[in-house]
């Protein structure tokens, strides 16, 4: 088992920090493009945790999960950007708070 140059705890700390930043962005941003970017940050934070864990235990599973997350993120961006276009066309704005027709 090969020891990492950076201790696992540090990597996990960065990863959870990134995750929290993404989550806060998700909650606080109104612009849908920033929301998508925050989602990207959260996905990559979890991917980072997988890589670090895989490297720590010398298992390939971490990298496989990373590949999966990468493809999910790509798909999500494809769909998400399509939605962004639609939102812009329908509401003439990118503010998500205006797209609240499903209330109540």
């Amino acid at each position, binding site marked *: 088992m090969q020891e990492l140059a950076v201790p696992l705890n540090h990597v996990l700390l960065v990863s959870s920090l990134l995750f929290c930043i993404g989550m806060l962005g998700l*909650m*606080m941003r*109104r612009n849908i493009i920033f*929301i998508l970017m925050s989602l990207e940050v959260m996905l990559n934070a979890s991917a980072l945790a997988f890589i670090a864990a895989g490297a720590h235990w010398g298992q390939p599973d971490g990298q496989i999960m990373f590949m999966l997350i990468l493809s999910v993120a790509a798909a999500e961006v494809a769909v998400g950007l399509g939605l962004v276009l639609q939102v812009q066309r329908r509401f003439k704005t990118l503010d*998500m*708070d205006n*797209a*609240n027709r499903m*209330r*109540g």
Partner: protein
Amino acid sequence: MSNAIGLVPLLPLLSSLLLMIFGARMTRPMITLLGVGSVGAAALATAALAMEFMANPQPIEITLWTWMKVANLTSGVAFYVDGLTLVMMSVITGVGFLIHLFSSEFMHQDASYARYFAYLNMFVCAMLVLVLADNLLLLYLGWEGVGVCSYLLVGFWYTDRANGRAARKAFIVTRIGDTAMALGLLLLFTELGTLDIQSMVGAANAKWQVGDSLPTLACLLLLAGAAGKSAQLPLHTWLPDAMAGPTPVSALIHAATMVTAGVYLIARTHGLFLLSPTAMTTVAIVGIATSLLAAVTALMQSDIKRILAYSTISQIGYMFLALGVGAWTAGIFHLMTHAFFKALLFLGSGAIIHCLHHEHNIFKMGGLRSRMPVTFWSFMIGSAALAALPMTSGFFSKDQILLQAYQQASIGPWLWLAGLLGALLTAVYSFRLVFIVFFGNAKTEPDREIGWAMAIPLTILCALSMVGGYFALPLAQVFPTASADHPAHWVEIVSIGVPLVGLAIAYGLYLGRQLSAPSWTTGVTGQALREFWFSGWGIDRLYDGLLVRPYDRLAALFSSEPVDRFYSAIVDVNQTLHQWLSSTQSGRMRWYIASMVFGLIALLGIAFNIAPGAL
């Protein structure tokens, strides 16, 4: 002819149904022809029946069809005609026809002309069923039928709320008596096993002894029913208010026929009442008490129809007195003469009201003697008969009642004395009415003359009121013969003289002014007493406070549905929760995310607290 008995009630029924269905499309002459003609035809059929009965005076029984057959109760639509029935039928169809004829002019301007005759014909039919019925169940059908028609006709001008209230009062108060009567019928049926009147009386006489408690109870229940229908104490309060209806209705229903149904009922079941001296005495006391109370009240009234209404209550009291002392024939005789002269008085008052812009207050009338001669003579003759002045029809019937009351075994002389007092008051109030309305100065000018359709019934009833006392009623077979003894001559002379004294007093007080009211009557006590009597001895107010208002309050309490409140609280809680929760569905994605995050944090916190070692 006996097969045609069914025709007598059928004719008014058919006419009533036709008027109900097609009345709106008929012209007025057609409605008149149908409404008045059907009762006229019924009167002719009754006359033919009476001829045949006179030739061969045997009771006729005829069963049209079986009405219901349940277990051992068989009730047919079956008629029984004897002398008593014939007298009643003649009064109903004869006087009824005259009043229908009068109505055709009185109601001619009314928008609901067809509806009026439909109700009136229906009433005649129900009343005929009542008197023709050979069993108590069919009688009860007629009994309720006349009640409904009375309700409809009292509230005929229903757009005025007061009329509707009067109609409701008439219906509800009589209903109290009807309920007692229904209980009486049930009691008789369970004890005797039949409701057929003739066989029931036979069975009662076979089963019970004179003075047993069960027949007393049954008779008292029947008496309560009779008191409700005939406006006797303590259920008399509806009749004065029932004057809200058109005046011919008051003449037909509330003077001549329906209110005498109670008298008919007691006379019809007299075999039962003879088993119970207690019930008989009660009948007599109720009658005389009502008679006096109503006579005093009549003396105070100012509304012409209310005077006549109280006078009707008072005269029916005399009939009850007659029944109570066993003077059956005299009671029925008075029923007939009363039907003549009271219908006459009511129609006369109808003529006055018709010609005087619907004026009811006697103090706004006056001097009508020369302006309305037919009506004046109608009132003179009617009042003379009502006051029982010698040689009028009322004299013969009332005299018989008083003389037979005197001979009652236990309290006879007292009943006689009270009856005399009533007769005196009757004479005073009836001539007070005549003197105030027809003499003195004119206060309101009549704006039209009465036509022949009003004048003819008045004239015929005048004649009947004069000669009605000479009719020999075919009642000998129906009732046990009264004792032939005569009380001492002075009793008769006093009985004859008292109404004349009453006439003299009324003349002195209201026309000649030789007498003046004693000074105390204008004082505080006199005024209070007058108001008390004017309001009918405060009985209406008593019932209002004792029964009507507590009931209203109870109804108001329950109309807020106290039981349902618990269930509606459950609904309310659910609705509030629903509103809270649905308001969280705001459609704002950021809120959803935030609540998911905080929810997750909370869940994780809980999980750590419960199982700190899990992670």
